Each structure stands twice: as C-alpha cells, then as structure tokens.
C-alpha cells in the first residue's frame, strides 16, 4: 500500500485525489460553459449586421462576449480559491461597496439606457450595472446574518430579530435600485430574498409576510403612479399582445414571430430572417433567446432551457448536501436568482411574462451580468468543495 505523500508540484496539487479541481462539480461547470459559448454564437449572429452598434466590426460583440466570459471564469476561479467561507469575513466590505456603486448610479455618473438609470459609466467606454453585484452581496449578506447563530449551534432557526436584520440589510440596495428605477432587478432581488428566507428556515410568517408585502408593493406602485408610462404600456401590451403591434406590442410580437418561425430545427445559425432583418430590438441582450428560437429551433432553444435545468439541478444538490446553513442559504439564493431571472427573461420572449429589461444568465451579452453569474458559479463550486477558511486570513 503506497504511503500517502502530499503532492508538492502544481500539477500534482491540481490532480491529487482530494484536490479542489477533482472535487469541483464538473457537470455544473460544463453546463454553464456550454451556455456561455452558445451565447457567444447567438450574440454574434444578432450583432454581425448591426453596423450602427458594432462600430463596423462584426466580431465586436462576439469577442467582447468571450472576453467577458474569460473575466467571469477568472472571477469564478478567484472565488473558488478564496472560498465562500473566507469571503464571509469580507461581506460587510463587499456589501458596502455594492451599495456605494448603486448610489453612484443616482449621481450624474449614472447613465440612462432604455428609460432606466441603472448603469454606471466607467472611463474607457465601459459601463457597469451595480444591481448585478447587489444580487450577490444581498445573498451573501443575508446568508451571513441568518446563518450566524444557527451555524454556531445556538438555535435551530433564525429568530425574528435576525430576520429583521437580514431584511434591513437587503432593504437598502433594493430601495436604491427601486429609485433608478430598475424594476426587473428589484423583482429578481425579491425572488432572492424569498429564496434566502425559505432556505434559512425562517418562520412561515415571514415568508407569507414577504409575499404579502410583494403583492401590496405592486399594488402601491401601480396605484401611486410610480411606474413610467413605458412600463404601464409594457404591461398593457403583455395583457393584450395584439395591442398596438407597431408600438409597445412590437417587441413581444416580433419576438414571438421569431421564435415561432423557428420550428423544430430552426433556420440555421446566421440564417434567421427575423434576426438578419433586425426585427427584434435588444436582441443581443434581453431578447437573445429569440435568436436561439429562430435559428436553432426547438432543439437549440430547448437545449438552453435544458442546460439551465442542469445548472439549477446541480445547484439544488449543492444546497442540500452542504453541512452549513450559510452555504445552503447562499446556494438557495443563487437558485432563486437564476431561476427567476431565466424564467422572466425567456418567459417575456415567449409572451407569458411582461417585458422587463433583464439579461438571460450566461447567454445574454453584458459584462456585469456575465461577471455576476460566474461569481455565483464560483460560490456554488466553493460550497461544494468546502474549502476551509483560508489560513492566510
């Protein structure tokens, strides 16, 4: 029987039986990677003719998508390396940072795109969407607060005070994002908070209370006229798709024509007439799923839904199998985030959800979104590999 000797070389460390690399959830990683690469092709198809956007370079968006993916993979690796437990200590700093970034959006530094002031222009032509980071910091922050006393073994479930603290932490970025206003992100944050509370084992009263607040909040927003006209019009168009097909109903209508026209196998990549003819607005970002629907058909678009299912299945497994409540809550928050955002995004292109400006995780073009979802993948992997708190801390 060979004697166990710790590996010293890098390769040896990476491939050792108990190494991080071996313990990673490769199925999860592969599914997320395939989706991101499919996204690159679809983004390419949607933008190669849009000369008004791509600065005359048909590969502009394609290459940037790959670059974003590269950065995302880097961030994921860093996250795994550091480990979610190590990050636990940095959460207050990260949370503070994300709140500051969100606040900056409301200053003249913020940029308004499509009626929503949710972008932060960075020198050098880049822009950030702080709401994407808020999704991570709220998940981490709430998980930290709610799991603290349970993981310490003090209580079986978070008590009311802890829940109030967690909700208070979430309320600040939610309020800021509501002011932008970025309703889509607020809805995702709502889903995350719900997922977090559910998985934390908080009292049912809190869950019902949160759902009730959501309903009352929606009614209040509607009644108080906090919505812009364009948002009301979108809801009207959702309720009645044949309304004003040249105006507010245009997006949904054209999106549905594109997807419906795809049939079983689609028209082939780069051969979708709806895509080539640029009939669907925002096709490389929010409406990327229509490209898949038209050019790859039911098989290709179904593939994306299937891959999302794989990611969520693995995430659920990770949530169930981890020993700490902290990890469970983080995983559940990410599950709620991905599933709600994907459902809303694909649902709006299929005409079963109202239109909001949300990217499709992994597939849509967009740097901040890509970074955020890959950090989330990093967190999931980290929960799985259970790296101990880094000694260096």
């Amino acid at each position, binding site marked *: 029987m060979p004697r166990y000797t710790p590996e010293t070389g890098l390769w040896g460390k990476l491939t050792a039986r108990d190494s991080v690399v071996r313990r990673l959830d490769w199925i999860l990683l592969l599914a997320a990677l395939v989706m991101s690469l499919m996204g690159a092709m679809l983004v390419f198809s949607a933008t190669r*003719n849009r000369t008004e956007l791509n600065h005359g370079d048909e590969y502009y968006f394609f290459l940037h998508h790959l670059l974003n993916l590269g950065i995302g993979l880097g961030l994921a690796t860093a996250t795994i390396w550091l480990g979610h437990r190590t990050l636990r200590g940095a959460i207050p700093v990260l949370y503070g940072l994300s709140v500051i970034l969100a606040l900056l959006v409301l200053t003249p530094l913020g940029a308004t795109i499509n009626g929503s002031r949710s972008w932060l222009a960075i020198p050098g032509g880049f822009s950030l969407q702080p709401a994407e980071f808020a999704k991570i910091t709220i998940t981490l922050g709430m998980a930290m607060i709610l799991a603290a006393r*349970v*993981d310490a*073994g003090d209580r*079986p*479930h978070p008590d009311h005070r802890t829940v109030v603290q967690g909700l208070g932490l979430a309320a600040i970025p939610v309020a800021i994002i509501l002011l932008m206003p970025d309703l889509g992100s607020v809805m995702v944050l709502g889903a995350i908070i719900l*997922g977090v509370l*559910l*998985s*934390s*084992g908080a009292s049912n009263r809190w869950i019902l209370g949160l759902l009730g607040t959501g309903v009352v909040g929606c009614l209040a927003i509607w009644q108080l006229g906090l919505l812009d006209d364009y948002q009301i019009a979108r809801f009207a168009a959702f309720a009645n798709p044949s309304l004003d097909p040249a105006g507010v109903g245009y997006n949904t209508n*054209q999106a*549905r*024509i*594109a*997807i*419906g*026209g*795809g*049939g*079983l196998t689609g028209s082939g990549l780069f051969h979708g*007439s*709806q895509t*080539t*003819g*640029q*009939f669907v607005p925002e096709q490389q970002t929010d409406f990327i799923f229509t490209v898949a*629907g*038209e050019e790859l*058909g*039911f098989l290709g*678009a*179904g593939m994306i*839904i299937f891959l*999302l*299912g794989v990611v*969520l*299945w693995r995430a*659920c497994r990770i*949530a*169930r*199998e*981890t*020993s*700490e*409540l902290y990890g*469970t809550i983080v995983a*559940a928050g990410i*599950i*709620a985030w991905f*599933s*709600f955002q*994907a*459902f809303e995004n*694909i*649902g709006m292109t*299929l*005409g*079963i959800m109202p239109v909001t400006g949300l990217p499709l995780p992994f597939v849509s073009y967009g740097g901040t979104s890509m970074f955020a979802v890959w950090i989330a993948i990093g967190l999931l992997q980290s929960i799985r590999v259970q790296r101990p708190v880094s000694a260096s801390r």
Partner: protein
Amino acid sequence: MSNIPETGRTNRVTVRLIAIQILVFSLLLTLGGRLWYLQIRNGQEYANEAKSNHVQQVVEPATRGSILDARGVPLADNQTRLVVSASRTELLKMKDDGKAVLGRLAEVLGMSEQEIRKKVRLCDAKTPQPCWNGSPYQPIPITDEATTQQALQIRERSEDFPGISAEPTAVRRYAAPGNANTAQVLGYLSPVTDEEIQKAKDSRSPLLRSDQIGRSGLERTYDSDLRGKAGVTRYEVDNLGRVIGKAKSDPQVPGANVVTSIDARVQAVTEKELDQAMKDARNEVDKNTGTHYKADSGAAVVMEAKTGRVVAMASSPAYDPNAWVGGISGKDYAHLTGKKSNYPLLNRAIQGQAAPGSIFKVISTTAAVNAGYPFDGHYPCTSSMNIGGQTFKNFESENFGPISLGRALEVSCDTVFYGLAYQQWQKDGGNKPKADTADWFYKTAHQFGLGKETGIDLPNEVRGRIPDRQWKKDYWKANKDAWCAQGKHADDYVSKIAKENCESGMKMRAGDSVNYSIGQGDTLVTPIQMAVIYGALSNGGTMYNPTVGKAVVSPDGKHIRRIAPAAHGKLPDSPRTLQQIDKALAGVATRGTAAWRFGGWPQDKIPMHAKTGTAEVYGKQTTSWFATYTKDYTIVMTISQGGTGSGASGPAVRKIYNAIYGVNEKGDIDNKAALLPKPESKLPKIEDDGTIQAGVIKPYVPPKPKPSASESP
C-alpha cells in the same frame, strides 16, 4: 438540539429546499411547454408571419400591347409622356391635407387649384367626375401633358412638392391613322378599382393596384392579352425597410399585340362617308314632317362575307378616345355621358337597334318559301290591302300587279308580304290561335339569328327583338297597368293605342303580323346582325360570329394565336332558294330600288347585291337601312332619322365599295387605287425586337363630285 441532524440542517430547511426545487423545475417545464406550443404546435403560422414581415414588392407595370389593323398599322399603342401625379396618402399626412402643395402645383402647371383638387378626390356614388376611381394607394395622375420645364420645376423643388412626382410614363395613344378614329371599337382604359382587384385575386390574371383595365371595345375583350404581367421584384427588407436580399421575383411580361381585321384605310373611308351621308341627310327635307332630317346617329359595318371578320366598323356620333388617357376631365366626361351628349360611347353597330324595314324581307321571303309558297309563284302587288278594317299601303302606293317573290324583293313590294303574312296568321288561327301555331315568319327570324347576340368579340352587344307571341305576352304583362291607366281617357292617338294595347296587347293581331312581315313594328335588329345575315346570303348560308380580333401575337412576334372564324348557324334556306334570293338582290342593285345608286357599277366583274330599307318609327323620322354584299364583303349602313335606305345611305355605301375595289363613278376599275380588292389573309410581320412592319397609310380624300356637265342627266 436533537432535531439538528449531522448536516447541520433541520427538517424544515430540507422540506423547503425540496419545495424550491419543485418550484424551479415547474418553472422550467412551463418554459419548455410554451416553447413547444409556439414552435411545434403553431410554428407554421409564425413562419408565415415571419415571411410576410420582411418582403417588400416593387411593381413595374407591364407595357400594354398594341392594337393593330390588318396591315400592322397601330390603332392603339403607347407613348411616353411626362405624367405628374400626386400620392393621396402623402398629401393626407400633411396638416392641411396637402392644400398648400396642390396650390403651388396648380401655379406651376397653369391649372386651376379647384380642378386639381377634384382630380385627386375619390369617386363615390355622390361624387361626380372628375374624381379618382382607382386605388387610393396608387399615385393619381393630374396631367399627362406636363412640359419638360414644368417637370423639372417640380423635381428640382421637391421640398415644395412632397408627394408629387413627375415621371416619364408610357401612356396609351389612339393614333387614328389616316383619320381612322375607330373609337367605339377600340374602347378605352381606366384605373382598376379595389373590387376588381379582389375579384381577380385568384384568377389567372390577377390585377395590381397600378393597372389600367379595358372598359369597353377591344381594350376590354382582349384585356388579359394586352395587359401582360407586371414585373414584381420582391426584396427582403429589415425592420427599417433597408434591402438585405432579393426574394423570388417575377419579371415583367409585356402585353401581346392584338392584330385586328380592321383596315385603317377602309375604316377611315367608312367613317368619313357615314359622316358625310348624315350631313347630307340633314340638308334633305322630310316630306312627312316637313323639317330637315335630324340624322342623329348612324352606323356602318364592313365585313368579310366569307369569314365574318370586320374590316371597318363606324358609329356616329364618335369621340376622341384619347380623352380617357391620363384621367378624363369633368368637361370631357359630361360631353361623353351627359344627357345632351347623344351618347357617343355607344357603338351603334352592335348596340344601336331599330326596326329593319325592308331589308328584313329576305327573312320574310325565306319564311314564305319554307311555308310552302313557291319562289317563282305569282303574288299580287297591289297598291294597298285592307286587313281587319285597316288599310295597309304599299310604299308610295305603287302597284306592280302579280309578281314573283324575287321581283317583290327587287321592287320592295310590301303588299305581297302583307298578303302572305296575313294568310299565315289566319292559318295559325287568327284571333283565336291554335295550340301549335306554325309562326313561320317568326320562326324564320329566329333561325336567322335575330333576337340573339351574334357573338362578336366586343362587349355589351345588344340582342334586338323578335315580337313573337311569347314576347307579346311578356310585354303586355309588364306594361298593361300603364296602358290601361292611360287608355281611360281615350281621345288622342296615343291613348287610343294604349287602350287597344290594354285590351288585346297580349294577342298577336293581324296588323302586328302584317306589319312585322316587312320589318316594321316592334322588331329590333342591330347593324351587325344584318351584316351577319347578308354575309351569309353571300357565302352560301353560313352565319359567322363576327370578329374584330384576328390574332394575338406575342411582343417578339414569335407566338401567334390565330382567332379562327367560327360559325353559329346556317340560314334555313335551300341552296336553290339562296340562289334565287341572291339573284333577286343583284336585281335590286341593277334594276330595283338601289339601281339608281349603283349606276355604272361593273356588275359583270364585281356582282353587287343590295337591299334597301326604310323603317318607320312612331314619333320619329324614318330610319335608313342599306344592306349590300359582293362575293367578298358585306356592307350594312343605317342612319337613324335619316330618310330612305337608298336615299340616305346609298351614296355612302357605294363610295365605300368604290374605295375598296378602286372603282370610279363611271365604273372603271383601277386596281392601283383599290384599297382592299381581296380581304387581307396574311398577318403583319412583327420583328423579334417588337417593331412592326406596317403598311403605308394616307388620309382618305373623298373624290370630288365631277362637274355636272359631264354627268348624264
């Protein structure tokens, strides 16, 4: 603490995680289901929608084919003109509905603003012409007579004239070669309406919004041949209308040419002589009314006897068909269709009907022979005949004694036919008709094709009428109430007739039958019907469907569809009877009622046959009829309120024959001067490039009457 398992998790958390998982996967299943519904279940529907989403059509109208005469001379062709048109949809987008633009346009074109505004309004039941009755999405032509300078002004100041275009456009031209106007035969075009587009949608020749459609005459009959197929280029466009590719396109197919049997030269002669005859008639005093003849309308047909092909067809009053080109003006429209217009749009050769008078006697003769009266028998031609207490006079009360049917034709003896018709009426039971009446005279008229269309290839031919027993019954039923009401105060002639009609109008009276036998009374015929009958007498008894179109030739001259002569019946005469009638009609021209008009005619070389007719119409002057034929041609002319057959129409018909055969007043034949001694059998040659080898044409100058000194008294 015991309820905290080793994983550090309570049951509550586990249950909730499972709930989350179920929720998540049901969301994904929902998406998958919806995707299947859109792409697989309803996929075809969306695929079609996607297709129509991004194809734009650009329509290039086809060049309309020409209408050619028998020698290739264009009667109708196309000409490039500067057409200024306005787009209604563009104008209506403006705040003032384009008023300002139309005002500026009026200034440039030198037209009144009022006039332009009327032209661009849409026609409906309440809007009189001028108005646009085409599609509201098609540019509306305002004038096709813009000068280059005007067009340039409009184009250079395009910001002042949004929605206005000035483009060189092919427009129809009715050239009237050699002054052969041929208006009613050619017909005219006007823009297609939305209903017509809908109707023709699924037919073999669907219409486009830009199409003009033939409304009458040859333009209508041969519309689908002449129109061709507009070129449709389909572009795939993106959401902003930018072209991103080309889809399946249909090339423009120019319309085919229609070669007619019309000879423009003979047509010009026919028109000119009809016109002259009517002018001359207006100088004559009608002995019955003591006023000049009105000669309000007339028609003439020159037909090939052996084929039914129409060589010339004139109808008066005529009009200039170019008035329709580029949209008709209000004044012109009133002029053509108003109550005072005398309806020049009517082609009186096929749409004018009148009692035939004595040219009907060939039918009565046949009826008599078929009823058993020998042709060469002796029938009294007395100066008058008393039937049922009414006296029926011979024309100008002449008395020729007992004569044959042939001689009765020659001298046009009425009393011979009165007698025969009366005998037949009595045989059929008189006022108490038998159940199976023979009705020889009526049956024969039907056998001659009267009361029915001849089937000429021109639209809206009228049928005429045979006043047989059935018609009398129907007519009485329709009118008895009015007659009976009018007949109550029986003091004037009209009321008396009304009373009589009220009481016995359903019956075939003796007087009706007698009058009918000489072509008077309620009988109505068209010139083309009589031309068919006299043509059949010439050719041995075949009644041809008259045709104007002779062949449809593709623009490159390669594909030719000949329109073969077709017959619709045979005359009910035995060859012997035909021969006898033929001889008698030759006698009419040599020693009968038409002899004075055919003085010096080379009868031995070109045997001439003729029959004169003078139809009486209550309350009007007599209708002049003249039906003639040679071996190759038949010519029928009629002038309403024009006088006697030989008197009014005779000289004109003689001059048409003179021109055709090159005969002068003395009877010499000059083959070089002859326009068409034999019917044209060849088709004109159309080259690959569409050019047509047309015959030369000079305007017809009628021969000047010779000084009276040289004429024999």
